């Protein structure tokens, strides 16, 4: 049981247990296919995640990879969508996918006893998916309608608009999910070509489950017809357009609360080698009830229900941001407070007590990342994708322990320079007056971002 190894790792000293920790991760090759396996016999089920090193960045039409995987089981030459759904549902198989600009992942979770039928069927679809026109047209109709209805979730709409604004003119500015216009351009042929490309793209398989999971090797080798001809997709890196304004996306109706997004795009040079330092920064600013922003915005002033910060890093770029909301009357105040917090942390005005508190928070919580094997595999996947050595994961508690208040203020200064922040407020147009005291306000139409 690998959990035992992990347990030993936490109880024993770090140096002593390093090799044990890494030994719980099995790396092998099944033909051309790289495989990462963690044994987990807690339940008689398995998870298999295939990571394609290509994503939305090479989509000829925005949203194509997403649509390809959304419609993955929409029909083959032998079975229609209903029959395929019926097959997977009957086995209780859960098939999910994630598409980012840099990579795509398809995960299959099912009972171990059903490995053969479930994985064989997945392979069959990879080889023979047809993307029938009727199913595609239905998908396009539903997707467009759903996108037009995104305004029912102000938070989701703000995320979409902010993402687009903060990545404007970079290689990543087209939405992974597609747009109202791009859906019109999708054809069965394009989807088929996209799936063929994924079949040939460099890929890595991450699996967890009991030892019987190794049966997958023969099934994949015999049925999936995958190759690794294509290297990882890389975008043309450009600098984003940064405008010193507050974008105000007006929503219909009488919104009495405004969504706030503040942040920016980070280049690879800014991110490289600083993953753990930036993770600490995001925890310090918005990683829990005791984080700086939650204390300042919610606990001290009652301006919001929640506030969060992130510095997310991909292989070739990163994004940093603050997510919160406030009532109309206090939206400008909330933004000013966030600005002040950036300035304060950037200037090193952080007490030893609050610094050490967040260090302990992150170090003490380290073990939770290993409770579910699938979450552990997810971490490995991210490290692999970013080209990081897993020893960094082993050393994470020590790395955080070694950070200093100066390194925190330096990170904040680098990641959140106020004059370079993209600021989006989504809410009522009456906010113009109060927001313009902070920066010039540029009103945008949310529908332009659908």
């Amino acid at each position: 049981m690998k959990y035992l190894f992990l347990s030993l790792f936490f109880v024993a000293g770090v140096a002593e247990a390093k090799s044990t920790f890494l030994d719980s991760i099995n790396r092998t090759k099944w033909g051309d296919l790289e495989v990462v396996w963690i044994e987990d016999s807690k339940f008689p089920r398995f998870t298999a995640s295939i990571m394609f090193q290509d994503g939305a960045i090479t989509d000829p039409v925005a949203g194509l990879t997403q649509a390809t995987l959304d419609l993955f089981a929409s029909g083959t030459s032998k079975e229609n969508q209903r029959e395929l759904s019926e097959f997977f549902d009957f086995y209780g198989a859960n098939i999910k996918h994630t598409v980012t600009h840099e990579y795509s992942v398809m995960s299959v979770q099912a009972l171990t006893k059903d490995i053969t039928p479930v994985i064989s069927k997945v392979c069959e679809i990879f080889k023979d998916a047809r993307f029938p026109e009727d199913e595609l047209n239905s998908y396009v109709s539903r997707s467009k309608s759903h996108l037009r209805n995104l305004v029912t979730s102000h938070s989701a709409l703000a995320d979409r608009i902010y993402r687009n604004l903060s990545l404007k003119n970079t290689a990543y500015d087209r939405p992974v999910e597609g747009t109202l216009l791009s859906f019109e351009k999708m054809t069965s042929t394009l989807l088929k070509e996209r799936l063929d490309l994924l079949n040939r793209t460099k890929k890595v398989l991450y699996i967890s489950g009991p030892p019987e999971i190794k049966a997958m090797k023969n099934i994949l080798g015999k049925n999936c017809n995958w190759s690794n001809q294509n290297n990882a997709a890389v975008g043309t890196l450009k600098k984003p357009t940064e405008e010193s304004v507050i974008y105000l996306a007006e929503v219909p109706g009488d919104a009495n609360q405004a969504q706030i997004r503040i942040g920016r795009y980070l280049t690879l040079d800014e991110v490289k080698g600083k993953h753990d330092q930036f993770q600490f920064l995001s925890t310090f600013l918005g990683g829990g009830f005791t984080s700086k922003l939650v204390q300042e915005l919610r606990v001290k002033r009652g301006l919001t229900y929640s506030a969060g910060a992130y510095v997310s890093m991909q292989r070739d770029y990163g994004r940093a941001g603050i997510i919160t909301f406030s009532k109309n009357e206090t939206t400008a105040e909330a933004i000013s407070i966030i600005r002040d917090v950036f300035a304060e942390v950037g200037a090193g005005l952080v007490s030893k007590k609050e610094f050490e508190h967040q260090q302990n928070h992150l170090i003490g919580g380290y073990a939770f990342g290993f409770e579910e094997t699938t979450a552990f595999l997810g971490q490995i996947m991210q490290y692999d994708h970013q080209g990081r050595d897993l020893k960094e994961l082993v050393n994470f508690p020590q790395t955080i322990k070694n950070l200093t208040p100066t390194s925190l203020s330096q990170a904040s200064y680098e990641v959140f320079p106020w004059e370079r922040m993209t600021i989006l407020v989504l809410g009522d147009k009456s906010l113009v007056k109060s927001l313009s005291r902070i920066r010039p306000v540029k009103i945008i139409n949310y529908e332009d971002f659908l």
Partner: protein
Amino acid sequence: MKILFLLLLLAGCSSVDKKPKSLADSINLDVRELKLENGMTALVVPNAKLPIFSLYLFYKVGGKNEVPGITGASHFLEHMMFKGTAKFGKNSMDFLIEGSGGSTNAYTTNDQTVYYENLPSAELTTILDIESDRLANLNLDEDEFNKERAVVLEERKMRYENAPKGQLYLEMILTLFKNTPYGTAVIGEIPDLKSVTRDQIHQYFKKFYAPNNLTLVLVGDVNEEKAKQLISQKFGPIPSSPSVVAAHAELKDEMFEPKLKSDIVIDKKGESPSPIFMLAYPTYKVGHPKGYALDVLSSILGSGKSSSLINEYTLIKKPVTTSIYAAHQQLEKAGFFFIGGEMVRGVKLEEFRKDLTSKLKSFCETEITPRNIQKIKNNYLTDLYAGLDTNAGLAQFLGDRQLLFGDWRFYKQELQLYENVTVKDVKEICQETFLKPSVFVSVWNQHK
């Protein structure tokens, strides 16, 4: 039987028949129970796989216990429970918990208020100290109370006023359970949230926060004896409350029976460019034998891509809905079956509503097949694995059963009841349910 294997691994069964007669007779979750003299129940499940644990505290108090004028009191109090005690000063609980690497949160429903923490093993004494102290000596500071009022109002705006999907759900609950104790907003009505006083919340706290209204569940890397000793030491001296017993006794089952006499259709204006909708039928309270067939029915109709409603309205050449689902929700004293979704732009709402209510009746004849029922049982198993994968998942599973059924062992009966569900059971409950008066709510920007 894979579920047997699951539970063996999960908690170390003491004895298992090789050829079990039934699923329920074959499994034994290894839960160590502790009953204190003050009426408190504690459940402990040691699991030393990682040096962490999850602690859940289930208080049997929620929206149904509130009276006009103090709607939202349970939820407001949930917020105030993080604001300090005599021993742990203002906001210090969060700092203690997060400062050791842990996390904490809470939620409030119609029936219960639940507090939970996930922490490294070394913090057991500290967290039991915190939890017992906030039960015995909660500080309801006036300034903090008023500051938190603003936070709760923001939460309400986020979940309802500015969220059409929240408006939809709330309207459905308020209508379906009108004039019953479930017919209120758990988060509270705005005038009540603005006017409720610190003293009213304090009275509410004194009435319902007592060890004889609490179930504590601890799962993870803990020593059973030490944990029991600590729980007894920290919670044992806290007196029980006779008033809470009386308060629960006042809520008679008949008070919760929905008063619907005929179908109700509500058009609610809201900022949704396409209509979003919910159609709800009253069912039975949790634990009712028919509830299990209703669960199976909801999965057949609206769970997974092969389900009936999705193939009728969504995955078709000219889709009517962008999404549609069915669910069966059981509360302590009542239940409801509901179907919800989002319509494709341009589809006529009234035509759809009529078609949906009519199709539901016909599904009782066409969709309840042995294969479909077996499919749902297979899925139930994989869902159960997912739910019990973490300390927190198991703690919640046990606590829910202890609170709602009065005995965590009820899961055995539940498994047996699911196993016994037949085509006939599901057909009968399908026909019964869809002949009842219903509530159909839609939110759309075209409504007046």
